[in-house]
């Protein structure tokens, strides 16, 4: 569905992404994992056109992404921190987005599940961070997009909302939708994802299915497998030191 080749991005002196290649397979859930500041969010935003890449190209369904906007009607995006126009209420947002994205069938499951009905008419500025985050989640799913990009979806949610959202992600996966989920909480991704892309210091260190990752590292859980991927560097360094000492 998405194919990125040689994507690079630099913010000032900081090289956030350097020549990243990534394929997002349709109908699968891909986890983009990596430590803080590894470029996960930037990669998502480049796919959305929110951040302009310095080099490389990105294809969406075979079409290059270059400043046009129509392809975004097929993407639902849940940013890490929901920032909304302060004076509007959630109902205004839904109406506005419906206006922009067309009056197709809507998926209001999350609005009901997350019990948002009562706050839809409250100005967003007076809502708590968690409530905004729930609205943020509901909006991403609202238009039944073909591709869902969820950036740290459970951060800032209480355990109940968080598990409701995970259930929703699993249902969408069953329904054969394509999802990109970013997180550094690896344990919660375990049950949700089919494929894993591991970003470290702006480069892809591993990209493949969950099984491939576990087999290649010989670990049973995602968390340990990723830890294993990060280890060799550290191990080599210690090995060198040991050798030098002897």
């Amino acid at each position, binding site marked *: 569905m998405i194919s990125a080749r040689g994507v690079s991005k630099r*913010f000032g002196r900081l090289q956030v992404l350097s020549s990243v290649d990534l394929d997002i397979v349709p109908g699968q859930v891909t986890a983009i994992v990596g430590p803080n500041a590894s470029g996960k969010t930037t990669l998502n*935003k480049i796919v*959305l*056109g*929110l*951040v*302009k890449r310095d080099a490389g190209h990105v294809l969406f369904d075979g079409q290059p992404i270059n*400043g*046009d*906007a*129509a*392809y*975004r*009607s097929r*993407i639902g*995006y849940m*940013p890490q921190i929901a*920032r*909304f*126009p*302060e*004076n*509007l209420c959630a109902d*205004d*947002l839904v109406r*506005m*987005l419906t*206006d*922009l*994205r067309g009056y197709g069938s809507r998926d209001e499951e999350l609005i009901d599940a997350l019990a948002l009905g009562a706050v839809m008419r409250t100005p967003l500025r007076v809502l708590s961070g968690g409530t905004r985050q729930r609205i943020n989640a509901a909006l991403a799913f609202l238009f039944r997009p073909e591709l869902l990009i969820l950036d740290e979806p459970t951060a800032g949610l209480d355990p109940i909302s968080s598990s409701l959202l995970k259930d929703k992600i699993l249902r969408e996966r069953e329904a054969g939708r394509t999802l990109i989920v970013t997180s550094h909480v690896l344990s919660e991704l375990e049950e949700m994802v089919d494929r894993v892309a591991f970003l470290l210091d702006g480069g892809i260190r591993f990209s493949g299915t969950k099984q491939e990752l576990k087999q290649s590292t010989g670990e049973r859980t995602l968390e340990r497998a990723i830890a294993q991927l990060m280890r060799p560097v550290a191990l080599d360094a210690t090995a060198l030191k040991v050798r030098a000492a002897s």
Partner: protein
Amino acid sequence: MLKIVRYELQNVLRSRYVIAYGLFFLLITETLLRLAGSSPRTLLSLLNVVVLLIPLVTIVFGTIYWHGTREFTELLLAQPVRRSTLFHGLFAGLVLPLSAAFAIGVTIPLALHRTIGPDSIGLLALMLVTGVALTGVFAALAVLIAGLVDDRLKGLGLALGVWLLLTLGYDAIMLGVTVWFADRPLEGPLLALTFANPVDLGRVLLVLRFDVAALMGYTGAVFQRQLGGLIGTLAALGGLAAWMIIPGLFALRAFKRNDY
């Protein structure tokens, strides 16, 4: 684009500042009417308020507004919306409420006092046009400043600096030029200097019609003698349009390149 304007208007009109701005013009016009009586004289007093205050409020409010629309921008740029469309929508969402607040605030007291006669209706129209044009110009400058300077406080400082330069600082430069080159013909250079400053252009536009050019400083007198009448009005309006469009285009370019 109209959809974006509509929702941005909803957002802006709910902010109290725009309403306060309209109320301010309502109050000042009402006060001036009670003090000065006849409406042409009221309009003349208003002129000074218009050429100083509209630029100040617009550039300050505009810079804050543009930084404040970042959330809206982030939300909408993840939707099937072009960046240029969003830019024009947001810009209209800034200029329209401010212009409307000014126009309504000034017109209501004048209409209530039944002072809009055949002699003053033209002046009122010109005043409204100038006010709206200055709103457009300083909104474009604000948007350019906010687009180039990410830091809110620095942006605000720069906006205030630009306003000071174009209102007070510029007069000092004009005066300096006149004193320094007092023994040479200065009409040409001063005319050029006037076009280099939107505030002066707005002032000249009004002064030409009020027929009190001498009261409004050296540039007013020069402008009237050089251009006078209709051509002067059109030239000043053209200058104001250029002052809106050129910074606006640079701001659009910055907006298209920005990362969100």
